[in-house]
């Protein structure tokens, strides 16, 4: 620390921004995780019921990834829900809490089950959140797309 800085530096520090000061939010993080869940559900169904060692190994890996990505999707949704969205957003979107609750429940359902419909419903619900999110930033130039 330079002498000048030591002289000038205030005795106290105040915080003036949000809890996570980066301010970078994007519903895409949740969408990518949800797409991985959908992909794993489809692959598990396609894998069938084989009990040989290779099938068991592959099935275990698919299940582990499905579990992990469903948890990641839930975490990404919670960040948007609890950190990004504020009461004024709720006024503009009265269904906001229901949509997030539904999405979080779908994350759980996709852990419990191997259910392609539930996985697709999760991706679709995140599509709704995508629309609310970008509308809240007055952006109409961000299309919802899927990688899969």
């Amino acid at each position, binding site marked *: 620390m330079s002498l000048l800085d030591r002289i000038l530096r205030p005795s106290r520090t*105040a915080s003036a*921004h949000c809890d996570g000061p980066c301010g970078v939010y994007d519903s895409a993080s949740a969408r990518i995780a949800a797409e991985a869940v959908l992909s794993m559900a489809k692959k598990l169904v396609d894998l069938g019921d084989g009990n040989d060692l290779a099938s068991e190994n592959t099935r275990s890996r698919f299940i582990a990834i499905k579990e992990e990505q469903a948890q990641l999707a839930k975490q990404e949704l919670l960040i948007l829900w609890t950190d990004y969205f504020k009461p004024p957003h709720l006024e503009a979107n009265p269904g906001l809490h229901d949509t997030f609750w539904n999405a979080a429940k779908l994350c759980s359902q996709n852990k419990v089950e191997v259910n392609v419909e539930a996985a697709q419903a999760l991706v679709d619900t995140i599509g709704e959140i995508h629309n609310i999110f970008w509308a809240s930033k007055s952006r109409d130039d961000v299309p919802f797309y899927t990688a899969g």
Partner: protein
Amino acid sequence: MAPTLAPGDYVVVDNRAYARRSPPPGDIVLACDPREPSRVIAKRVAGPDGADGVVLLGDNPDQSTDSRDFGTVRPTDITGRVVWRYWPPARFGPVR
């Protein structure tokens, strides 16, 4: 508090500003975060809320954590008024 305050700004705070009056809307103040009193926050007074609380909002509403999250702040938790920025030199002057 962008664009009014930037990370690393050095400011002078009047600790006696509200000894005889309550903080008027528009003032930038230091306050104890109601969720974590040891944390000092800088926010703008948006208005009184009844007799007991003051509404504090950030100037960058999309990204601010403020009274919309932690509710109103007790007047006794508002510790001073941010009056002057003395560093960096390019932004030297009153804080409004």
